[in-house]
């Protein structure tokens, strides 16, 4: 992350983004209580991979944000797995050396799309033709097995500040990352029994039993951040082996890009086909606040049916779908109303009834300046506050500049007049 900040600070001089990752083991506790071994990535805490990563391994791996304008990406990988691995990014050109092996029948076969990093070793993967978009990084080694183990994550580059692609600005963005788990396959791969009978020797028997969104099989996935009237960019990614079909209710979406390539024209749809391995960028511009339900219309909405004691546990835990399998795997997009239309949702607006995009709160009391003329903080706007304002008159003091126009002037006295004898606020951030 340090390198990112470095390149942000001097993006004319340094155009390379460097990320330091560890590939390692972790496990996920599913809704039915069972624990499944997973492989994933961790982001290093000190950019020194020789001492490990310091952060826990996650599935999906950490979200990598390449600063706009950077032209080179270096992924430094420490391999804490018992087998060789590597990293590829579909859609971004790179000069990698495939690794082959000779099988029992004497055939030379490809095992890895990119040069491998051996267990315990550190490798570097470089892309020097970056292109803005929502991409994924994932293992390029024994892909059929390693990717479904969880070795995947989002890698994102915007074309500009809050601009996904030229002409596609957004106010906020979020990642919706679909994947699945076949626990039998995971156990076999993790224990090393995969590939040798009686263990599975291929993924032909793959049967997804758990469906994950952003790495979890929660009954309800809360996705906050959207604000009425604003454009949220939903970056949809599917790294499962099956197709998924996010479908939103009560709204239409605008699909603007696929696999990091913008469409010539946005597509207005409420359903989005998300094929295995695919990314789609979707604009969501809700007109009103509330909860917008989205779910996979391929109806992969419940995990496997719990068996034996697990079933009892699942029912006792009051899980969403107690009569069947645990989980409903619904995504609720929480859309905040924006009463004053300043682009800041009511639930985090420090002046919910006064438009203040800057959210300036000079006295730090949780009331934004635009609704806080109580300059002496005695609880009311009154005659004691007026002299304080007059002292600052015609100065450039943001603490008294209620409307943020750069000067303390007559307009600000007008603010004080309107707020006279009133308490500051209302504010959603009043501590």
């Amino acid at each position: 992350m340090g390198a990112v900040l470095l390149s942000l600070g001097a993006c004319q001089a340094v155009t390379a983004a460097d990320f330091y990752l560890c590939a390692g083991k972790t496990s996920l506790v599913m809704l039915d209580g069972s624990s499944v071994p997973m492989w994933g990535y961790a982001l290093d805490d000190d950019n020194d991979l020789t001492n490990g990563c310091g952060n826990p391994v996650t599935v999906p791996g950490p979200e990598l944000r390449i600063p706009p304008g950077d032209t080179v990406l270096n992924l430094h990988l420490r391999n804490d797995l018992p087998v060789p691995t590597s990293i590829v990014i579909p859609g971004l050109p790179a000069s990698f050396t495939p690794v082959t092996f000779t099988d029992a029948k004497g055939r030379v076969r490809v095992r890895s799309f990119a040069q491998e990093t051996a267990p315990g070793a550190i490798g570097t993967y470089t892309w020097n033709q970056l292109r803005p978009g929502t991409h994924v990084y994932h293992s390029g080694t024994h892909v059929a097995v390693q990717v479904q183990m969880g070795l995947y994550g989002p890698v994102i580059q915007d074309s500009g500040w809050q601009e996904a692609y030229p002409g596609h600005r957004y106010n906020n963005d979020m990642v919706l990352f679909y994947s699945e788990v076949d626990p039998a396959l995971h156990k076999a791969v993790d224990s090393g029994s995969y590939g040798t009978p009686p263990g599975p020797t291929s993924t032909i028997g793959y049967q997804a039993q758990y469906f994950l969104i952003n790495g979890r099989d929660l009954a309800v996935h809360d996705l906050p951040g959207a604000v009425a009237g604003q454009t949220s960019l939903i970056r949809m990614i599917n790294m499962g082996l099956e197709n998924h079909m996010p479908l939103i209710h009560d709204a239409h979406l605008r699909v603007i890009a696929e696999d990091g390539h913008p469409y010539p024209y946005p597509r207005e749809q409420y359903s989005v086909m998300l094929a295995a391995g695919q990314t789609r960028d979707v604009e969501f511009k809700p007109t009103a606040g509330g909860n917008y339900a989205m779910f996979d219309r391929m109806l992969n909405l419940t995990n496997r049916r719990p068996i034996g004691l697990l079933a009892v546990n699942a029912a006792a835990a009051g899980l969403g779908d107690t009569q069947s399998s645990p989980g409903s795997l619904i995504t609720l997009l929480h859309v905040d109303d924006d009463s004053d239309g300043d682009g800041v949702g009511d639930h985090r607006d420090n002046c919910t009834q006064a438009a203040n995009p800057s959210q300036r709160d000079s006295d730090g009391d949780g009331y934004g300046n635009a609704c806080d003329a109580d300059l002496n903080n005695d609880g009311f706007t009154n005659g004691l506050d007026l002299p304080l304002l007059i002292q600052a008159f015609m100065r450039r003091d943001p603490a008294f500049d209620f409307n943020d126009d750069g000067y303390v002037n007559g307009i600000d006295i007008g603010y004080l007049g309107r707020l006279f004898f009133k308490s500051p606020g209302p504010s959603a951030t009043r501590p």
Partner: protein
Amino acid sequence: MNIKRDIERIRRRLAVTLMLLGMIASPAGVWARIQGVTGVQGPKGPVFHLTAGSFHITTPDGHSLLMWGYGIAGSKTQYPGPTLIVNEGDQVTVTLTNQGLPMPVSILFPGQHRVVATGGSTGQITRESTGPNDTVTYTFVASHPGTYTYYSGTRPGLQVEMGLVGALIVRPKAGADHAYNDPATRFDREYLLLLTEVDQAVHTQVELGHLDQINNTLTHSTLWFINGRNGPDTLYDDNVGWMPHQPYGALVRMHPGEKVLMRVIGGGRELHPFHTHGNNFTLIARDGRELSSGPGQGIDLAVSDYTLQVQPGATYDAIFEWTGEKLGWDIYGTTAGGRPHTCVDNDGDGFDETTHEYCPDHEKPIPVILPENQQLTFGPFYSGSPFLGVLGNLPPGEGGMNLYGGMYFMWHSHSERELTNDNIYPGGMLTMLIVEHPSVPIP
């Protein structure tokens, strides 16, 4: 031989009579509607009182399946649910009462914005009806024309599989013969093609009451449906008595030159590649929105295709046309072949004004030597002649399904596995398009 010739002569006269009748019965501007319900008129707009209940259907392979479905209150519940037809701008009210399903039930209307649910009981996604005395009401403004779907928002993985899905059509202000307000979306006929699939094991488990034995991750479909029927039941009329809970047929009929609007809905959980024989279709809309590069640009992004990837939950509008253009032979036969007729193109569009024959191909013979009947194997849809509106000689007992000498084209899932009913071919997701002679009345 003389008897045969007489029969042929009678048939020709009949065809001419039918042509005249057809021209009287089908003045310009008359178009065939999709069978559906328009509700009762409430103070604010149309009101639909729906129930949800269970029933059995019999599939062509002999299975009896327990289904759950929506129905109009006071009528039978059905598969798929009743097609709700409203007009652009209507404030629509839909009430739902659960009549005996063993769990709550609800309705979602994807593509409708700001649906308000009141009454009933709290549910995870929307409000639900838990029983006969617990009615939930949904209201929304049908603000945009188009083809939409509705389905249960309660345990959808199970309830959509069980049959709780239907179609919603919003007719545009431009008129009921338009799909959208753009003039290019005008049509002569429209057909609903709602595609679903069934895993019989789930239905058996529900019937046995083993609701907690159902494993959603192991569903494996074995039956495929268009409008709630498997082929060949798809070819029967609407509302036939022996399929009391499957009122909607899927047989598509048209005259040459007509525009047929296909309203296609992915009602199940799987992808279905829906393939039209006969011609390409032009896809004009997806999810109730025209394929357009922007306001005022019309359907400038419409695309021609012959296989529609029907995605679950999504809806599609496509215009299908068939004219025989550039086949290279006269679809009505030639004078030399004993079928004299004219081709009059007054407006210069290349087609006859009445028969819609493609005049550049007028009098061109069919470029094959027609084999003798002894060399043919017959299907029930063969009229005995390759020419439109002609009933040729057939051996005794052959043919019989093609009453008007129409041209049959199969419309079906291009996933051939889905052309079966539990592994028995033919069946499943297939229906027929019949291009009928212009004189043949089509309801």
